[in-house]
């Protein structure tokens, strides 16, 4: 091989070409590709984070739901208890009221019975006098025998 100027010209051309390629093509494009790589990586990381957060939120929602359910069943239980209490109370009240009414009615009955007895007694006295008058065929001096008649009436 002859060593000629061509060799050195080609060497210079080669070095210059490398320099140009680095300046106008490799530099900008590789920077761009790196930036894109970073962007994709960021996006993936964000997606991962979002997924994680969603999982946490789901878990939290489940917890809240469970708590709410517990509270609800507690409220229901309390309500049922309160309702049965109220029913008990109402029953109690009704019973005492009923007893009171019954007692009042009994008292009334007794009073009426006594009153009737009183009326009967006085009427019996009158009847007895009338009967005795008829038996004796004479008039009984009601004034002289009043005490006696009253005694009789009290005995009936």
């Amino acid at each position, binding site marked *: 091989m002859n060593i*000629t100027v*061509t*060799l050195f010209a*080609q060497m210079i051309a080669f070095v210059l*070409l490398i320099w140009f390629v680095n300046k*106008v093509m490799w530099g900008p*494009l590789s920077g761009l590709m790196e930036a894109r790589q970073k962007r994709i990586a960021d996006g993936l990381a964000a997606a991962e984070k979002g997924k994680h957060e969603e999982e946490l939120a789901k878990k939290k929602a489940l917890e809240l739901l469970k708590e709410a359910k517990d509270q609800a069943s507690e409220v229901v239980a309390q309500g049922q208890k309160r309702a049965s209490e109220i029913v008990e109370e109402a029953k109690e009240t009704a019973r005492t009221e009923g007893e009171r009414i019954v007692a009042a009615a009994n008292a009334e009955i007794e009073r009426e019975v006594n009153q009737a007895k009183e009326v009967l007694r006085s009427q019996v006295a009158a009847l007895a006098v009338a009967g005795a008058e008829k038996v004796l065929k004479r008039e009984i001096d009601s004034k002289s025998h009043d005490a006696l008649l009253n005694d009789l009436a009290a005995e009936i």
Partner: protein
Amino acid sequence: MSQAAEGSEGGGTVEYIQHHLTNLHVGEGFMTWNIDSIVISILLGILFVTVGARVAKNATEGVPGGFQNFVESILEFVQTQVKDSFPGHHPLIAPMALTIFVWVWLMNFMDLIPVDLLPLIASWFGIGYLKVVPTTDLSVPMAMALVVFILSLYFNLKVKGLGGYLKMFLFHPFGKFAIPANIVMTAIEELAKPLSLGLRLFGNMFAGELVFLLIALLAGAATLGAGMLIWFPLQVVLDLAWLLFHILVITLQAFIFMVLTIVYLGMAHTTDH
């Protein structure tokens, strides 16, 4: 073609081949300028840089489309090779590897243009000689190999230091008891790297071009003169086959040149040799 036809029976073929393998040059001896190699390689370099610059200018950070995608895949391919073969990091290696791969490929690609087309066009403008494929001119691959060699020298001195580099000559590969042999062996090894690098590319492309010339000769002017038109279909088939095969060869040679450059520079860039 016309030159070949003018030759006599046997001399026509030889002259045809020699004509195609002679550079368009001015000057004699050391001052020989191979104008065709220089102009074509620089034009291809300008084409490469222009297209690359346009892609880089219009490139988007978002979803790349069409041609940008193609360019980026080449870049990524080169980057992977550098990452795999070059220990450590140096900002020059990747753009250099990319330049070698694409530039060598483009210069090799000139091989696929029909061998007589460009010389014929040139002859219309009064240019008598034209060697179309720059990589078949030994000066072109050797120039690149020399740049790689100089760079590897620089890396050796920078990373290993002068002492470390001399030590490599003294104690490698046989240890400290065979220092004279070590010097010879290491010197041969170091010199063989750029030589083989340049000669491999040159040899492959030169041989490929020669086969194209021979196929062209089959039904070319030289044999046409003898009335052997019957060879024409065979030429078409052979040319197509060699063309398809050569697409592989030019890519492979560009790839090999790039990878070996990375490997040699990587060897120079490490301390534990």
